[in-house]
């Protein structure tokens, strides 16, 4: 498991360094123009993932939905989210958000105990809502470029920065360290965690996913567009004034769109 994480890290770092040399366009332009250097590979891997999802992940998520109530599912997802508080605390710290970092530590302490291993979000009720921050938002803030769009096997849409962040994020799972000394238990716990969180996540996006799929004529392109736009929100620290809406305005005014807009206006 450890080796695997390390391998993913190395691979992604290699891709990241090459990526930052070759991509000169900003992530914002990417979201609009949809630069997709590896489109051939990506579409093939997307197809593979689609089949994997169809025959394995989706049926599991549907089964999970069938045997649980919304109440139970909320307990499960809250407990999984609680395991991410150490990650949020670390990254809030790395981003200079000291108060939020403190809140994350506080939330982890309260919810792990009073919240019954994180199943209930007691701290939110006290006025301390979750302060999400992962390595991806930290690297974004440190102005690390996103790199090209890549479909990872099983994990799906990603970019080199997102892939590196995913590996780093998983190393901050308290379960990872709590079971670290017993290799046998460690593997079992980590694999179970991966399966449970994967199925729970898939269940939570079921409806949106179905909508997007049934209403799109090119599911791959629709997914890519939504994924890249959603990532565009994380801005670099010295670039804070340029919010996503302003960038989007800029997008609307690009080259021939300007002409289209003028034509549209002058009609």
């Amino acid at each position, binding site marked *: 498991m450890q080796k695997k994480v390390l391998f993913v890290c190395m691979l992604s770092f290699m891709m990241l360094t090459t990526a930052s040399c070759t991509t000169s366009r900003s992530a914002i332009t990417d979201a609009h123009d949809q630069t997709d250097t590896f489109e051939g590979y990506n579409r093939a891997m997307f197809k593979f993932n689609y089949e994997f999802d169809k025959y394995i992940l989706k049926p599991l998520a549907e089964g999970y939905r069938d045997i649980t109530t919304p109440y139970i599912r909320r307990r499960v997802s809250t407990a999984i989210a609680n395991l991410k508080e150490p990650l949020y605390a670390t990254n809030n710290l790395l981003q200079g958000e000291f108060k939020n970092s403190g809140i994350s530590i506080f939330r982890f302490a309260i919810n792990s105990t009073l919240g019954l291993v994180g199943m209930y979000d007691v701290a939110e009720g006290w006025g301390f809502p979750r302060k999400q921050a992962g390595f991806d938002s930290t690297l974004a803030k440190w102005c690390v470029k996103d790199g090209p769009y890549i479909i990872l096997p099983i994990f799906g849409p990603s970019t080199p920065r997102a892939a590196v962040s995913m590996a780093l994020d998983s190393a901050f799972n308290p379960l990872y360290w709590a079971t670290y000394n017993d290799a046998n238990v460690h593997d079992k716990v980590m694999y179970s965690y991966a399966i449970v969180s994967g199925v729970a996540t898939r269940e939570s996006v079921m409806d949106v996913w179905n*909508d997007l799929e049934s209403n799109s004529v090119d599911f791959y392109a629709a997914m890519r567009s939504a994924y890249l736009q959603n990532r565009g929100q994380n801005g670099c620290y010295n670039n804070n004034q340029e919010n996503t809406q302003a960038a989007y305005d800029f997008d609307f005014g690009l080259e021939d769109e300007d002409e289209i807009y003028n034509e549209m206006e002058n009609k």
Partner: protein
Amino acid sequence: MKKTFLMILASALFMHTAQAQAAVDAQKAETFVVQVTENGITDIINANISQAEKDKRFAKLFNNALDLDFIGQFVLGRYWRTATPQQRTDFIDAYRALNIKTWSQRFDEFKGKEFIFKGTTPSKSANQIFVNSVVPMEQGEPAKVVWRVKQTGDKFKIVDIIIENVSLAITARNEYTAYIKNNPGGIDALIKDLQRKSK
């Protein structure tokens, strides 16, 4: 000479900003979106009427509130200019039908939810403005929903909805231009596929 040049430059800059800023009445734009969402929630989602009636009311609200002709042009991107008038009309109709179908299905997911409006943000596009809102979720942070509103005279229309940073217009545009590029059937094939999807 230098002075004149500077003055022209300054006035050009001023005119540019003035045009983009002053044209839209922010207060009215927000009120417009508030009304649209309130109508949707009270007259459709919470109304005690048949599904067929709901669909009918939704289609009406949708057509009144959104400028589909405008959105459709943007969505087709560079292919709009090469499209024949017939293709343009067919595309807009198909796109409209698919959107109405998608959204009337999704609308019920909004039961029990509400929009909290958070003021407006200026837009660089002429006659347009962003109306910001959030939707509290059962868990975690509220969802961000931004409405792109266009003013023509004293009439307002929604030209895009941006949910959690994902613009519906840009997503459709990326999808459809990718489709046309990869498909030998071009725009006609796209129109046929959209018609098939909206049935």
